[in-house]
């Protein structure tokens, strides 16, 4: 499928969306470069879907500007924005065949029958749907439906793809496979993707940039490596990575008035250090995770290779954090110091 997406950088300037008193999106500014795979990541209710829908044109911003390319699109209808969208529920037309579903955006635009059948065939080919063209969505598996939704999105050859948690209704195995396929699709189409998820694994593996959101604002924007290695706040540090980053109380690891964070792989059991109690030992096969309680608000996880001797539940231990891999955060604001 030959595809030349037009230039489609996206620029959000001071975008807010309020529903009554609720500030779903609060004064967000964000630049998405042309051909980026941008992930909007955050817990449910953080405003990521609303932000995506504002880009797609399904929500009108309460304030601010949305630019696509060199055009301010606040007053542009969704259909004229050169944006397509994949919904979490797939939103397929249940009474139309797979082929009719895929063709539909072209039909609406008045593309003639032969041409749109050809385009649908190509899109179906890309996504491995050729054998199912005559079926109704109801007769397909979840994964197949998800592909039909993708095919319907790509058939229009839009400059921007918006995706709202498109994998969340798939089972774990299929989700992992589809992740890789979406990345491949991004390479192949060479278009701008904006992808909403609450799953940090999807964010880390698929995006080339991640915007971490919380309570309607963006906490940090950066490459997956940036976000993982230099989290801008305690929230980001704890949201990204499984298990999350360990946060030590002020004054425990370093004699200073700030929080210290360390990834589990950089946290160790030792004979001296921060005193803690073993709360849980999990044998995962390839490694062992030891969850320790430091105090009522702080827990830390340590990773050990299989075969090592592990302390039993309830036994007292001491924790240390690698000198070179410490993250320091302000106690009040939670923001990164160094």
């Amino acid at each position: 499928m030959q595809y030349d997406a037009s230039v489609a950088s996206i620029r959000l300037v001071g975008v807010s969306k309020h529903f009554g008193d609720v500030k779903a999106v609060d004064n967000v500014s964000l630049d998405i470069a042309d051909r980026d795979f941008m992930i909007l990541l955050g817990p449910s209710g953080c405003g990521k879907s609303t932000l995506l829908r504002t880009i797609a044109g399904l929500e009108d911003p309460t304030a601010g500007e949305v630019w696509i390319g060199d055009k301010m699109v606040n007053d542009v209808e969704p259909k004229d924005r050169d944006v397509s969208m994949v919904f979490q529920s797939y939103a397929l037309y249940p009474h139309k065949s797979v082929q009719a579903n895929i063709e539909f955006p072209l039909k609406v635009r008045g593309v003639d029958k032969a041409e749109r059948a050809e385009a649908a065939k190509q899109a179906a080919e890309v996504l491995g749907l050729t054998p199912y063209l005559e079926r109704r969505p109801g007769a397909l598996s979840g994964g197949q439906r998800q592909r039909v939704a993708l095919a319907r999105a790509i058939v229009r050859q839009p400059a921007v793809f918006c995706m709202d948690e498109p994998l969340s209704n798939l089972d774990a195995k299929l989700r992992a496979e589809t992740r890789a396929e979406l990345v491949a699709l991004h390479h192949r189409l060479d278009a701008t993707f904006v992808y909403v998820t609450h799953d940090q694994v999807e964010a880390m593996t698929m995006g080339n940039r991640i915007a971490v959101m919380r309570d309607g604002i963006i906490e940090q924007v950066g490459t997956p490596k940036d976000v993982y290695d230099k989290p801008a706040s305690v929230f980001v540090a704890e949201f990204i990575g499984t298990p999350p980053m360990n946060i030590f109380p002020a004054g425990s690891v370093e004699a200073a008035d700030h929080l210290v964070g360390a990834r589990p792989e950089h946290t160790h059991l030792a004979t001296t250090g921060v005193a803690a109690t073993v709360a849980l030992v999990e044998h995962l096969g390839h490694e062992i995770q030891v969850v320790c309680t430091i105090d009522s608000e702080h827990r830390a996880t340590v990773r050990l290779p299989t075969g090592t001797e592990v302390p039993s539940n309830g036994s007292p231990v001491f924790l240390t954090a690698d000198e070179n891999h410490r993250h320091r955060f302000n106690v009040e604001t939670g923001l990164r110091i160094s």
Partner: protein
Amino acid sequence: MAIKSRRLREIPLAFAMLGPSLLVLLTFVLYPLGKAVWLGQQTCDVQGKNCKSVGWGQYTNVIKSDQFQHALWVTVKFAMITVPIGLVLGVGLAVLADKQLRGMRFFRTIFSSTIATSVAVASLMWLFLLQPSVGVLANLSWLHNIFPVIKEPGLLNDSGTALWSVGISSIWANLGFTFILVTAGLQSVPKEMHESAYVDGAGGWMRFTNVTLPLISPTLLFTTVVLTSRAFQAYGEMDLLTNGGPIPQDSTTTVTYLIYGSSSIIKNNDGLQAAVAVLLFVILLALSALQFRGFGKRVHYGS
């Protein structure tokens, strides 16, 4: 601003889509209701023109009048005849036909068949059965020898039997409707409910009263409400079978017939017709509120 315009942009479309319905409903439902309330305290000439107010006391006068009270009593009797009997027969037929046996479709079709009769068709069929000179029963000599009332004065002309006769015709006409509804209700009862009751050792009658009836109670409530409101609004039967008579007792002059009947004493008085119509509205409103409250507590809508 885009923000405002999107919310307001759809107003013309909404107006175009709702306008026609709204116009019709306002003109032919709400306006007439309001106008009837107003007209109910007026008196008009025979052509229904030149109405002038005679005061709201007209409503109390109507309520106090013998004719209204009589018509209301006839209506209540008519409902008390047709609703319970119709309901019991409908449930009985539905239970009888609720088995996967050969030929059951045939019986179900017959039991449903009266749904195809309009009030005029049904009433004329019964008129031909009951009419004292050309009617079927009147021409079976062995029958009217036992029951002389069939021929003299005729079941529809005897003040003792007229309302029952009209009621039976009405029950017959509604039977198909009741049967179809109750059958649909029975079929929605999960089979496991019967089987578990059976395993618990409940006999046929116990299963029916303890499992079937409670589970179809929403259907029964709905059917009762519809049958009652049909009984209160019955008109065609009286118009075709008895003309509200026999006179002088006006044994089948129901409230609706009192308003619209061609032999009603108020047929040329728009003001009084409106007053009675408004009272009928109030009665029906109170009645359905009552039914939903009284019955509602004992209805099981399932979990």
